[in-house]
């Protein structure tokens, strides 16, 4: 608990509690707003060439919220990885852990305090981001129910949870923050590659969460695929944290 409170205080002092939510909000609303204004934007840069007519697609609300998610999946994930790359690795590199770990501190608590505090930051940011996106969508594109928003937040949050858990895992393994970020991103990229190649076999692979979320919005029902994938993602995250605690303990 002491360790957890310290993490919250630290993330407040280093302004993570301000900039991470703001950045996530920005990323979430960027695409909905630009697609709404796409005609005007094209106009203002000189319009379309003579004779061609622009068939403006009418975006359905689910498609727009998926735009938000795809922004978060690329830039958002990048930001989260960079933001979390030093949480343990940095402390070990600098040497503060020497003072912390000689106190009767359970390694388990040290790792989980980091994990939970990061998750709190990530989930709250995600909720705020999607909430603003939802507000714009209702204003500009049409109805998306609040329950749907909560469902999206929940299932997509699991994906980000996996990202954070991966980052924690590499943090416990390696002392160099930059390398932690690199390996986390690399792993995510390899996972999406595996997903593309073995898509037919790995139906419940975590990377499929987004597409199942879209299905859910289109069909208005929770598919077993979605729930199973969510479970797989959760189990993987927890396994990663357990593995982190273990690797952290056996050092030296």
């Amino acid at each position: 608990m002491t360790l957890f409170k310290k993490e919250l205080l630290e993330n407040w002092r280093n302004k993570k509690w301000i900039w991470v939510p703001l950045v996530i909000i920005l990323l979430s609303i960027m695409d909905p707003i630009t697609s709404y204004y796409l005609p005007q934007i094209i106009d203002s840069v000189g319009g379309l060439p003579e004779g061609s007519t622009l068939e403006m697609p009418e975006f359905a609300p689910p498609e727009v919220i998926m735009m938000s998610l795809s922004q978060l999946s690329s830039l958002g994930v990048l930001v989260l990885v960079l933001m979390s790359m030093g949480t343990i690795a940095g402390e070990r590199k600098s040497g503060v852990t020497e003072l912390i770990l000689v106190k009767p501190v359970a390694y388990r608590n040290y790792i989980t305090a980091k994990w939970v505090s990061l998750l709190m930051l990530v989930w709250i940011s995600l909720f705020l981001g999607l909430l603003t996106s939802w507000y714009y969508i209702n204003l500009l594109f049409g109805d998306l129910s609040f329950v749907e928003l909560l469902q999206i937040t929940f299932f997509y949050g699991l994906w980000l949870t996996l990202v954070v858990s991966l980052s924690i895992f590499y943090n416990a393994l390696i002392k160099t923050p930059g390398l932690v970020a690199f390996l986390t991103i690399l792993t995510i990229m390899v996972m999406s590659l595996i997903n593309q190649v073995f898509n037919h076999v790995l139906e419940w692979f975590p990377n499929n969460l987004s597409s199942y979320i879209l299905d859910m919005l289109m069909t208005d029902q929770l598919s077993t695929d979605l729930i199973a994938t969510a479970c797989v993602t959760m189990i993987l995250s927890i396994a990663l944290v357990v593995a982190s605690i273990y690797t952290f303990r056996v050092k030296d």
Partner: protein
Amino acid sequence: MEAFNWGLIAPILVIQGILIIVAMIDLIRTDYTNGPKWLWVLIIIFVSTLGPILYFVLGRRQR
């Protein structure tokens, strides 16, 4: 351009503004940065949105 509803765009600008201000305050109060402070001032102010994020991720010294 009358179709442009500034009320919709305003939040984006406000968020960018807050990011710049928070980054600047942090930069002024901190004792050490990676790289010269004046460079970060330029980055924060002139690189839109990305500037403050870059500062928070890379500029603050990890200790």
